[in-house]
């Protein structure tokens, strides 16, 4: 990268960051000041600024940034927390639906309520099942990479 390119990239980076900051300011103005007309512009600036920052970093020389290493080292724990947090509210919702199902069936629309309970049960099962599978997959991903040459692996396969 030439000096001019580096300078240009630096300027784009500043412009992108400024777009994000300005976008956030517009969103605050929209929601706290009631000026909803500017919300779309705020969202647009945040999106464009984010894309700009990402593209500029992505096209730059690969760097093993410390924060990336931190994320990488804790990816299993982070993944499991994320899985738990994403599933917990729907589990609560569907479990609550099943708990109140008898009461709901007594309110005159028992057939529909029963159907609702059944759908809730299926969705609960799908959510919990996916959570379990995802946690297993994330734990498995933490296994150390198997050493060995592809030829050895290939010959074993053969």
């Amino acid at each position, binding site marked *: 990268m030439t000096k001019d390119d580096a300078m240009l990239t630096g300027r784009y980076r500043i412009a992108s960051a400024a777009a994000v900051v300005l976008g956030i300011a517009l969103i605050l103005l929209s929601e706290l000041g009631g000026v909803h007309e500017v919300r779309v512009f705020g969202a647009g600036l945040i*999106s464009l600024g*984010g894309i700009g920052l990402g593209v500029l970093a*992505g096209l730059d020389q690969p760097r093993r940034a410390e924060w990336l290493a931190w994320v990488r080292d804790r990816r299993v724990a982070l993944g499991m927390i994320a899985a738990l947090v994403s599933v917990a509210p*729907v589990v609560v919702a569907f479990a609550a639906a099943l708990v109140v199902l008898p009461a709901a069936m007594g*309110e005159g629309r028992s057939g*529909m309520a029963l159907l*609702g309970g059944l759908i809730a049960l299926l969705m609960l099962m799908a959510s919990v099942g996916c959570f379990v599978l*995802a946690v297993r997959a994330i734990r498995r991903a933490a296994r150390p990479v198997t050493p060995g040459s592809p030829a050895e692996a290939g010959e074993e*396969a053969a």
Partner: protein
Amino acid sequence: MIPTREILWNITALGPILLYTLMAIPFVFLAYGLARRVRMWRQGQPENRFDQLGRRLWHAILMTVLHGRIVRRRNRFGGLMHLAIFVGFVTLFIGTVIVMIEADITVPIFGVSFYRGDFYLVYKAVMNLAGLLLIGGSLAALYRRYVRRPATLETTGDDVVILAFLVVLGVQGFAVQALRMAVTDDPWGPWSFVSYPMALTLSALPESWLRAIHVANWYIHFLTNFVFLSYVAYSKMIHPFTSFANVLFRRLKPVGALDPIENIEEAEVFGAGKLEDFTWAQLLNVDACMHCGRCLEYCPTFSTGKPLRPRDVVLELAGYMADRGGIFSGELGQGENSARYRWGAGPDRALIPDVVSPAELWDCTTCGACMAQCPVYIEHVPLIVGMRRHLVLEQGEFPEEVTSVFTNLERLGSPYQFPPNQRAAWTKRLDQPVPEMAEVAARGEEVEILFWVGCLGSFDSRNQRTTVALARILQAAGIKFAILGKEESCTGDPARRIGNEYLAQMMAMQAVETLNTYNVKKVVTACPHCFNAIKNEFPQIGGNYEVIHHSQLINQLIAEGRITLDPNSALARGAVTYHDPCYLGRYNGEYDAPREALAALPGLELREMRRNRNTSFCCGGGGGRLFMEETRGTRINQARVREAIDTGAELLAAACPFCMTMFEDGIHGVGAEESFKVLDIAEIVAGSMITPNGADGAKEHGAAESEGAAPESAERPE
């Protein structure tokens, strides 16, 4: 009362503030990952793939958005499953954008609302259907991976995490809707046919509870979406971008033509010995793989337990590229029962043999089954041949058996140790003489067609019978033809596929020079490898001819009534199965002519093998494998012969000398010599032909010789 709903119901100002502010994060992650990939692709060599953009764009839409290659008869479950996920996801995305347009543009800026009335009702129903498709498709994918477990599919952590994300996102959407409707008692609720029954059930809960659970679900739903979007660029979920790009920038040249090394005399790099030696489009190729395993379904090496699995070669390259490119995805891509993906194992390994092994490279038959099946047009064969070129031309490493092939090609112009002046020895078996082009030219005459005999057809005793049969057909039809005789040489096909591009170009240039000397316009050949080389690769060096395969010509002669077939011929009875040669079928799209020629014999009953036409299973002889020992796994030719025998046919019809050689060996290998035989289409037709002199064609061709008559000519070439 007009049907509509309150957008951001039960959400305070904090909701949109967080929603829009945090939106920067997934955009940064997504853009970073995509840019990182583009940067990786740009490490490759330049290549122009920006021509014919309209055609490219339409094809990319057809093949990816419209699922042209994804939903196929043989992959109906997987294809429809993918279609359901795709339609569900895209519809829900569009639905979200519609709500944003209403809430952020049309209402606040123009004071106009379109999210109401009939549109709103239909929208609700469509979104519910899309949610069902998304969840159903994702669950079907999990079922396929955990219950059906096709042998070609390997489940990685990444696959599971993505599917779990999709299911949970869909479920969250329904939960948020049901919780809202449970409180608002939405009169148009039944249009949300999935959420509505749940809303009725949930309505038994106290309102404060419903509101609290709704808020929690709303926030977690958008945060899950953001985490998912952030994950996209570092996982297989990048495939909507990479697949589309890969199909958009796919190679438009004939699939049978390998790209030559340009200006080879002055080239400094031969083939691909490191990642940067591939073109940028090839690097995009390997990045586009989503390890669906379709390339393995008809792969002869995978089916016979050899080290080469085309998918794994691509993934090994992709993992290596990700390591070197600084993308920190990888470990989630490690297969559950395979040590073959060493993603994240470090960028400092050598491409060959650390990332891709020579065994993998040498096992490929270049049959193209992988490329024909790949839904995103990954071209495995050029990748493999590129690495072979490096091994042969830069490292001098190749299977020992190939040494004599190279030597013979250089010295004698054919892979075999026969002098060129024996090329026309087979003509002595014909009653009528076959002129050579030199004689024809000397007489100042012209011929209608040049018969390119090929090396196997010239020297191999078994394939000479096909050559003789074809010559008899041409003579019977009254076609004025000639051969090159001792002036014919190899087209360079085996050398090129083995990776000796230098020798291949030398052979090809010699052949083109000879053909151009005689101003040849039309060529017929019984060898699909020669056919492919002359038709698709000779134009690269100025050789432009009309090339037809002998099965096409025979079919045409039958249709025109220029040869007459005897329906009572000994060869025209019983069940026959036809094997599609890879270089005729998959590479050049000719499936019908050989079948139609066989169908002209009403006594023959054509039975198809399980794998036929573009899913045909290779004989094992392509890519130079004819000249190499098959030391790993079981034998490909025997697998194919068994498949042919399983049809109940007694006769295997071939249309390629490579296949003929492999099947003769295969029939011996499975011990079926007594009950099963292989004949070329030309032999079957010539053997069933009513000849002008009344000779018994069947005896002259397949029938007599298959009953044990000794071959008349040279021994099998070594």
